[in-house]
């Protein structure tokens, strides 16, 4: 039977044996055979006799190696001679033949062939890469190597075959292939890297996950720490992942996270091996991160979501197992600290996690665990801070700081945390950063100043600003001034672009004020450098500028400006002119803003602040004084603000404004009319009937209060310097003179006839027009009376207002004259107004000591007299006396107290000026008896 079958099967049997023999002959003597035929034989063997596969693959190695060698030689000769030699065609044909068959094998039976072929192709690639490394002037750069080898038919085919293997297995089992990749990579690195890069970019997910799991498998089998960290496979894993990190960071991160998450999940069907692997996962990841910074950063990017307190509590039970991989707990801790210090991203997340651990309260688990976690986290945090501190002091900052630098925002948020540990830690880190880059400090300080809500946070701000690691000399006027500058400039910018405030600065202003007040108390040594006031001083230009336009926070800014005291009492700071002008303007604005305000307490406080600020300012600078007085008066008298003081708006002006174009058109129309018509006027003369101006006048109380405050402010402006000798008169004479002159300037319509002397009464006919104008001013702005009254008090300033008084007197005489002719009824409004005004004028003159007694008492008498008598008195007594006694400061003498005055006992007017008065009073002695006695009989005499 045996022989029988032997005969039947002899044909194929003999054929196959022949093939083997042919192959052996050819393969052992490569030079003397047709490579194509030989390859075909080899492929037949491979398909029919699997036992021969090792030899066949070995032969293929030679074929590919030869082809690669030819390729390299070709390139080398091209470099040398410049021409590319003829490519060997048989190589191409043979390789494509082999490629075809292998591809078919993979296609037909991937599970069996792919691991074999893939391992073979990878090893061959490794050998070829190593063998020809450095040839053909290849630079060692990955991309160029890749380009070179992808240009070679042999290697390209191998890579393609390998890719086919992997893709055919992608859904089942790639472990064998990837393990081969790792092994080869271990053996032939770095020349093999291009293959890894190529394969990796073809199957990033597979390669990454498989590489990780192979690495983990290998790592979990290590017995000792040394073995673990020196494992070639681990290094290869790191190398491969490092290559892929460039373009597949996200995938790597995901893969690492996946194995981490998987390691936390325990399932019933875990075998021992997987259990060990799970325990080794975290040490493995740590080790990877230790070896590659790219991996480290890709892991660190998102610790927030991976590592939470709850995860930590679960990890807690693994720690003993981990220690095995590091030798002892100390090494593990050191390792983790090193890693943390090397993180270039995600630092804030790590910090938050550590802080969370330190402050852990709400977790499941016993107290022992809680305590252990708390203590360890505290230790690590401390060590990290210490290390950073040291590194900063040695000018070699750790990487972690780079990460923090990107995350100052988060750190700034932590600054405002309620917990002391948290805000102090973040402050500490920010100070480290500030040491490297002062702008960080500015940023944080700004954040604190803007948002601090309690004293602790403000204290923290001061501590940060004064920390020893912070370079104080970096900015000329201190960091804090830069902080303020930024806030102010940003604010101004915003304000000017949108005209509304986006960020609420209320807190900032309050904080600033608090800090300033702290400094002023001189109780805190940390503030002895006066950093707050220095900062404010250097920003005064902006601050005062802002104060001028600010409405929301004007009170608090006023507080600050008041507290900072410009100029300072000790004259240590000389504000620039711009500041003075800004401050003057803005304070005046503030004054009017206060006056308009509805409330009372803020308003009153505001007035007080205005007074204090202006007093300081005006005593310091004459320019400021002139500016402030002018501004105050002008606004109170002429601008829309005048209704605050009972003024009638001279709205006529607004209507009168005429456009020249319109006027010209009017004329053009009228001219032809006048030529052909005798009609002179259409009906309306001027602007027609005068409209009765109805205004919502303020209540009298408010007006008088406002006037009172204005006078107060003026008083403050005119106050004498505190160190002057005369303590009794706190007003400066010069200032009052200035005020007086200003009034003349404002009220008098032109510069003519503004002199002090009073001409003949007859001359008033010439000046009647301007006299009436001045009179009208007084009617429209009753405030003028108060102002004159204020001037009159500080003699002899009223003298300079002589022209105003003269005009008033002239108009009054005129009016009384016409009154006498028209009516005797003294009950009309007109009469009362006239009488009131006259009395006011006389009293004013008396107050200013322009009229000595008994003339100064005329005001009391007038109301009992008839119109012609009043005219006579005004003419004969007042006007004549004034005409002959020019109201000039020369009339006044300065006494020992520095007060100017005219002694009424000495300067009695001569009889000529009092006779008219006397006669009229005698005529009315019935009613004026007691007064006559007082004025003419019981005259006090100078002893």
């Amino acid at each position, binding site marked *: 039977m*045996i022989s029988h079958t032997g005969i039947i099967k002899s044909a194929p*049997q003999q054929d196959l*044996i022949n093939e083997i023999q042919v192959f*052996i002959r050819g393969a052992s003597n490569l030079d003397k055979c047709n490579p194509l035929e030989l390859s075909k034989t080899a492929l037949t063997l491979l398909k029919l006799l*699997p*036992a021969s596969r090792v030899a066949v693959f070995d032969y293929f190695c030679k074929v590919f190696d030869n082809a690669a060698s030819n390729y390299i030689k070709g390139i080398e000769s091209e470099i040398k001679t410049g021409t590319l030699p003829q490519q060997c065609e048989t190589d191409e044909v043979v390789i494509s033949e082999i490629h075809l068959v292998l591809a078919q094998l993979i296609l037909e039976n991937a599970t*069996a062939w792919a691991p074999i072929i893939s391992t073979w192709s990878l090893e061959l690639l490794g050998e070829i890469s190593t063998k020809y490394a450095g040839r053909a002037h290849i630079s060692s750069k990955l991309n160029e190597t890749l380009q070179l080898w992808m240009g070679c038919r042999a290697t390209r085919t191998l890579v393609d075959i390998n890719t086919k293997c992997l893709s055919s297995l992608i859904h089942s089992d790639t472990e064998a292939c990837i393990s081969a990749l790792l092994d080869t990579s271990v053996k032939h690195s770095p020349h093999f890297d291009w293959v890894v890069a190529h394969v990796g970019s073809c199957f990033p997910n597979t390669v990454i996950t498989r590489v990780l799991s192979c690495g983990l498998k290998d790592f979990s089998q290590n017995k000792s720490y040394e073995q673990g960290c020196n494992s070639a496979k681990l290094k290869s894993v790191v190398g491969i992942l490092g290559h892929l990190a460039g373009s597949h960071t996200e995938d790597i991160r995901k893969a690492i996270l996946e194995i981490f998450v998987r390691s936390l999940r325990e399932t019933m069907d875990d075998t021992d091996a997987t259990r060990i692997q799970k325990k080794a996962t975290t040490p493995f990841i740590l080790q990877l991160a230790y070896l590659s910074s790219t991996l480290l950063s890709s892991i660190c990017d998102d610790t927030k979501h991976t590592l939470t307190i709850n995860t930590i509590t679960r990890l807690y039970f693994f720690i003993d197992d981990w220690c095995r991989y590091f030798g002892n707990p100390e090494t593990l801790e050191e390792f983790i600290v090193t890693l943390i210090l090397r993180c270039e991203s995600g630092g804030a997340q790590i910090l938050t996690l550590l802080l969370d651990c330190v402050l852990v309260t709400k977790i499941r688990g016993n107290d022992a665990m809680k305590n252990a976690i708390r203590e360890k986290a505290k230790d690590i945090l401390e060590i990290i801070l210490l290390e950073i501190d040291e590194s900063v002091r040695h000018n070699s900052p750790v990487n972690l700081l780079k990460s923090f630098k990107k995350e100052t925002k988060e750190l700034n948020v932590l600054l405002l945390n309620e917990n002391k540990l948290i805000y102090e830690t973040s402050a500490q880190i920010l100070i480290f950063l500030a040491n490297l880059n002062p702008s960080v400090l500015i940023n944080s300080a700004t954040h604190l100043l803007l948002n601090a809500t309690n004293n602790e946070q403000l204290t923290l701000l001061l501590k940060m600003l004064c920390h020893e690691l912070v370079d104080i000399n970096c900015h000329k006027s201190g960091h804090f001034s830069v902080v303020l500058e930024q806030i102010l400039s940003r604010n101004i910018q915003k304000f000017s672009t949108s005209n509304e405030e986006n960020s609420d600065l209320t807190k900032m202003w309050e904080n600033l004020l608090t800090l300033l007040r702290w400094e002023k108390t001189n109780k805190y040594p940390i503030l002895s450098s006066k950093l707050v006031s220095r900062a404010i001083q250097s920003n005064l230009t902006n601050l005062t500028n802002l104060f001028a336009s600010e409405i929301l926070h004007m009170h608090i800014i006023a507080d600050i400006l008041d507290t900072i005291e410009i100029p300072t009492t000790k004259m240590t700071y000389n504000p620039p002119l711009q500041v003075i002008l800004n401050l003057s303007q803005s304070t005046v604005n503030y004054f009017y803003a206060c006056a308009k305000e509805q409330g009372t307490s803020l308003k009153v406080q505001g007035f007080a602040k205005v007074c204090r600020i202006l007093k300081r300012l005006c005593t310091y600078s004459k320019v400021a004084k002139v500016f402030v007085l002018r501004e105050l008066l002008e606004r109170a008298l002429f601008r829309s603000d005048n209704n605050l003081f009972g003024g009638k708006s001279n709205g006529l002006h607004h209507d009168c404004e005429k456009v020249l174009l319109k006027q010209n058109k009017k004329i053009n129309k009228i001219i032809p009319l006048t030529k052909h018509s005798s009609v002179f006027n259409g009906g309306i003369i001027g602007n027609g009937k005068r409209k009765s101006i109805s205004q919502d006048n303020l209540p009298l109380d408010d007006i008088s209060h406002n006037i009172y405050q204005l006078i107060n402010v003026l008083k403050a402006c005119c106050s004498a310097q505190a160190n002057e000798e005369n303590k009794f008169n706190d007003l400066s004479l010069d200032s009052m003179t200035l005020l007086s002159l200003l009034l003349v300037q404002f009220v008098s319509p032109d510069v003519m006839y503004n002199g002090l002397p009073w001409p003949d009464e007859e001359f008033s006919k010439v000046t009647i027009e301007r006299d009436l104008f001045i009179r009208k001013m007084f009617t429209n702005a009753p405030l003028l009376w108060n102002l004159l009254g204020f001037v009159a008090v500080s003699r002899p300033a009223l003298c300079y207002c002589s022209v105003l008084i003269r005009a008033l007197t002239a108009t009054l005489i005129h009016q009384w004259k016409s009154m006498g002719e028209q009516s005797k009824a003294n009950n009309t409004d007109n009469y009362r107004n006239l009488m009131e005004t006259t009395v006011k004028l006389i009293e004013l003159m008396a107050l200013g000591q322009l009229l000595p007694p008994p003339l100064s008492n005329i005001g009391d008498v007038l109301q009992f007299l008839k119109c012609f008598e009043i005219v006579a008195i005004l003419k004969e007594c007042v006007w004549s006396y004034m005409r002959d006694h020019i109201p000039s400061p020369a009339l006044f003498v300065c006494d020992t107290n520095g007060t100017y005055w005219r002694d009424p006992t000495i300067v009695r007017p001569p009889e000529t000026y009092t006779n008219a008065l006397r006669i009229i009073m005698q005529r009315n002695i019935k009613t004026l008896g007691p007064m006559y006695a007082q004025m003419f009989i019981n005259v006090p005499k100078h002893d």
Partner: protein
Amino acid sequence: MSTQSDVILKQSLRKIEYPLCAKEALGRIVELICGRITSIKHMDLALDLMAEFIFYEVDRRGNKRPQIVTPLQELQLLEIMFEYFNSIPNEAARNSVFLSLFSGTTAMMRSGILSKLISIAVGVSSPVILLSASTWMQQLGCLSANSCKLAEALVHDYFYLIPNAKDRLKTLPDICPQFTANFLTAVAENYYLNSRKDKMFPPKILLEVITMWISENSSLCISAQQKQAALPPGAIAMEVTTPIAGLLRWCILAPLYNQESELYCHLHLALLNSILEIPQTVPAKAIYAQHTIVPISYVMYYVNDLKNQGLNSEQVLNDEKLQLALDRYAQAIQVALSMKAVYGHVDDLLNQLQHLPYNKLLNIVVNTHKRIK
């Protein structure tokens, strides 16, 4: 008869390049082993020659060679051995050389070459070599690690790598039924055993081919027992284990592992038919009782698993898979016992079977046979 001649022989062989010298060496070895006078000295020399000139394991001083044979040299060696064995007409001589080349002590070391040689023999259908291999398996034990390893290598070559080799393998029982039978015995040992976790189940093609073989040739399983192997003089023939018990284990356990292929039914039937074909011998030698006990523990594992899942004993008994397995088990035992093909502790077997969960058929079978005894 002197060591001098040995030295000369070795020196002459050393002049020939490595794989080629193997041919010459083989000739000498045959002479030494199959010569009329065999002595221990000859044997030693033959072993030396093998190590140095055939397997290239040691150098001239007997030290271990650091470098290994290249794949091409190995292929050359295989070709030489193949040709050589085919050229020896005497079966006994062939077997002697084969057994000494791959003796119990060296087989593990040389298993790679052995596997490849047999693989080629299967590929090119060389009944001569396969017969020797069959004898080798028989002598080392079909269930031994060596045999199992060989079987595994063949399965890898012809069932994994070349899935379309089915047609070529169809004729293997015709070419060398003894080898096929022993191969089956070894292969059966490679699957359905807990010791081999990674490969619990045979590939489908293997199962298909085995079913085909046994269905078409019901005497295949015992073919190795039917013909006495030609052994070197003085050698003791070892008893051959048939694949029946092992393959029955596959059929019994398959349902428990959710292997629901129809092929197991066919295989089971074919096996039962094969048992029926076993000629009665005294004593029985086809099926060893101890080998048939093996499935019991696996069935018990399965029952325990069910219980662990929370099933009560009634639910366990109603488990269809379990009952199918027990049915198959009972059928096989019944047929085997009734054919009186079982040897060894049959009582023990019956006792053990009683521990299994209740199955009607099994109960009847066990009780019947207990009564007969």
